């Protein structure tokens, strides 16, 4: 057999039916469901008199609209309450596992999947959410789908899919001090553009990727979609196996050992061909900050807001002009001179224990700037929250003037009451800086957790590489 990539191996393993020129029918191992994009799918299923084919492979959680304050109070927003009720009813009727807002396993769908061992190497995983690409960090094929496809998976446990092209993103060498997985993926998106990965599945390779923890790999794969790639993947290795071992839904004991043997066979074969390849040198990377209204509008913290005239394509030039007008930024402004109003540490991109630890290390013994309106830490799951509290991190944040919240999507999408007011500017560890993303008229700058923590202390972006609390090179 010709050498195959990780993507091709998982694809081949899951083909139920294929015909030339037609999309294949592929089997879905895990279907994750949340309150935001599922009610219409369940309604459609019911209207057509169909049933959920494999409820035991379907997992539901409340995350997008949940309050991160006191969950014991009644849900204040009647629309959100209706969503929660619909999800609870749909899951009960179909016998689907639901982690409701009171469950100790509750959290952002892309945080709890890996954390509970629902996400496994070699699996096909879908969810009505574009950041499903996160799960590819474990060597799974995972991608976001629309609500019609959610209904399709509920009914058939399969999807009709065209095979994607493959894109290798090779990050060579060791990453320098202060450069995190978030900076790596922001640099990649800056390089390929936000549509650069359209039609492709990305596989991240290279020493700098191998050197990342599972949390770091999840951060990278999470933002694959921001570069247009529907899925991002990292071949499973010992880091992956050590992470998966002992997780509640993962295979145990001898089953686990057998599974590891199979998972080891998934890595791309030597000589496997990718349709496209992009190379980055880790030593050239630095902490990144977005200046515009999409994640590809990004530069190094030591850089300046670009001048629209520096873009040769007239369409890009106009986009930069619009972005700077929306962001109220002057071309040529040093990034470090940009002040922030609120800081958000959270989201499916950067809310795992390692992210929380890195931010805590930055703020320990310091205090947020007096002029800052708010600094929020929203753990990605209740398990992350509990772990952080066991380590005393909540106290570090509270002492430093941060609010320590309950788990959910929160200010990344601002569907609950964690929002920016019009024209407020944030340093945010989330994934999208689109117009209005964090509230109508909000201005978002995407950064890593260490950069966000430093911005909270200094009230503007700072080159953190001289801070003693910044992790060294890996």
């Amino acid at each position, binding site marked *: 057999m010709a050498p195959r990539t990780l993507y091709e191996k998982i694809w081949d393993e899951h083909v*139920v*039916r294929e015909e030339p*020129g037609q*999309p294949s029918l592929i*089997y879905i*191992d895990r279907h994750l469901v949340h309150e*935001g*994009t599922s009610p*219409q799918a369940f*309604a459609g299923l019911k209207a057509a008199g*169909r049933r959920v*084919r494999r409820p*035991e492979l379907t997992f539901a959680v409340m995350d997008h609209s949940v309050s991160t304050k006191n969950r014991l109070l009644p849900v204040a*927003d009647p*629309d*959100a309450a*209706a*969503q929660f009720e619909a999800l609870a009813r749909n899951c009960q009727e179909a016998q689907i*596992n639901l*982690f409701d807002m009171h469950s*100790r396993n509750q959290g952002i769908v892309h945080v709890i999947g890996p954390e509970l061992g629902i996400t*496994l190497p*070699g*699996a096909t995983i879908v969810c*009505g*959410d*574009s950041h499903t690409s996160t799960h590819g960090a474990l060597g799974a094929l995972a991608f*976001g*789908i*629309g*609500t*019609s*496809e959610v*209904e*399709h998976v509920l009914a*058939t446990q*399969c999807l009709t899919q*065209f095979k994607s092209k493959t894109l290798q993103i090779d990050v060579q060498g060791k990453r320098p001090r202060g450069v995190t997985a978030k900076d790596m993926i922001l640099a990649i998106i800056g390089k390929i553009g*936000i549509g650069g990965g*359209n*039609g492709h599945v990305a596989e991240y390779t290279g020493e700098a990727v191998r050197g990342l923890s599972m949390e770091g790999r999840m951060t990278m794969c999470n933002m694959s979609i921001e570069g*247009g790639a*529907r899925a991002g993947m990292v071949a499973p290795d010992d880091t992956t196996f050590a992470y998966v071992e002992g997780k509640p*839904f993962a*295979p145990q004991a001898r*089953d686990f050992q*057998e599974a590891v043997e199979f998972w080891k066979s998934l890595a791309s074969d030597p000589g496997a061909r990718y349709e496209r390849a992009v190379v980055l040198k880790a030593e050239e990377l630095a902490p990144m900050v977005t200046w515009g209204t*999409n994640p590809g509008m990004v530069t190094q913290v030591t850089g300046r807001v670009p001048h629209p005239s520096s873009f040769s394509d007239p*369409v*890009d030039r106009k*986009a930069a002009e*619009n972005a700077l007008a929306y962001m109220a930024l002057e071309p040529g402004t040093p990034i470090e001179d940009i002040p922030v109003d609120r800081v958000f540490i959270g989201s499916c991109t950067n809310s795992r224990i390692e992210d929380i630890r890195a931010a805590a290390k930055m703020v320990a013994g310091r205090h947020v700037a007096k002029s800052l309106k708010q600094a929020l830490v929203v753990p990605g799951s209740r398990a992350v929250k509990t772990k952080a509290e066991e380590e005393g991190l909540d106290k570090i944040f509270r002492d430093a003037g941060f609010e320590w919240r309950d788990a959910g999507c929160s200010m990344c*999408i601002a*569907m609950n009451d964690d929002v920016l007011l019009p024209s407020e500017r944030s340093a945010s560890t989330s994934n*999208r800086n*689109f*117009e*209005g*993303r964090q509230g*109508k008229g909000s201005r978002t700058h995407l950064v890593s957790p260490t950069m966000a923590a430093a911005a909270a202390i200094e009230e503007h972006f700072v080159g953190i590489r001289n801070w003693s609390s910044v992790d060294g090179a890996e």
Partner: protein
Amino acid sequence: MQPFTRHTGLVAPIDRVNVDTDQMVPKQFLKLLTREGYGRILFYDWRYLPGEQPNPDFVLNKPRYKDTSIFVARANFGCGSSREHAPWAILDFGVRAILAPSYADIFYNNCFKNGILPVTLPDTEIDELFKRTEANEGYRLTVDLEQQVVTDDRGLRYSFSINTFRRDCLLKGLDDIGLSLVHEAEITAYEKKHLRVPSLHGTLDLKYHLE
């Protein structure tokens, strides 16, 4: 799903690159439980001033684009969130076809599930369509899926390619869940064959206490 065969209608220019689905349907409207009624919401923050007063500067609020049913758009249209609310809103607004140089993958897929035809044309042809749309009030195009051509009444004729399977589904308005369920025996056979991989296909150990 309503079939798409051939559509003639008024064209409006959405002259921005990388229009994301957050702009099409902002998050405050993602809490509705239905697929209907999103037309009023389409491009909400661009379209309305406070108090839901129409913003006169926004293209779709100009009287000449009042009965728009075709968008001409820029590259990477529909990027970002997977929310199918975006095509629901476009359809409910009255748009049946979109012409752009490229689309984000999930949005592209979602269009086909809702009877919207996203036509891909080269940049130069899209530029020409922008020019004609802006220069001629009441500019109309015909998008013919059977013939795979876009035409106007001034001699413009652009052919486009599209996957045959997607084309057939749209022409016939097929329910693709129904199509897949035709192969239920094969799905069952796949499940039986793969039960040997207990980590993925077996019954999960639900003894793990879920609360």
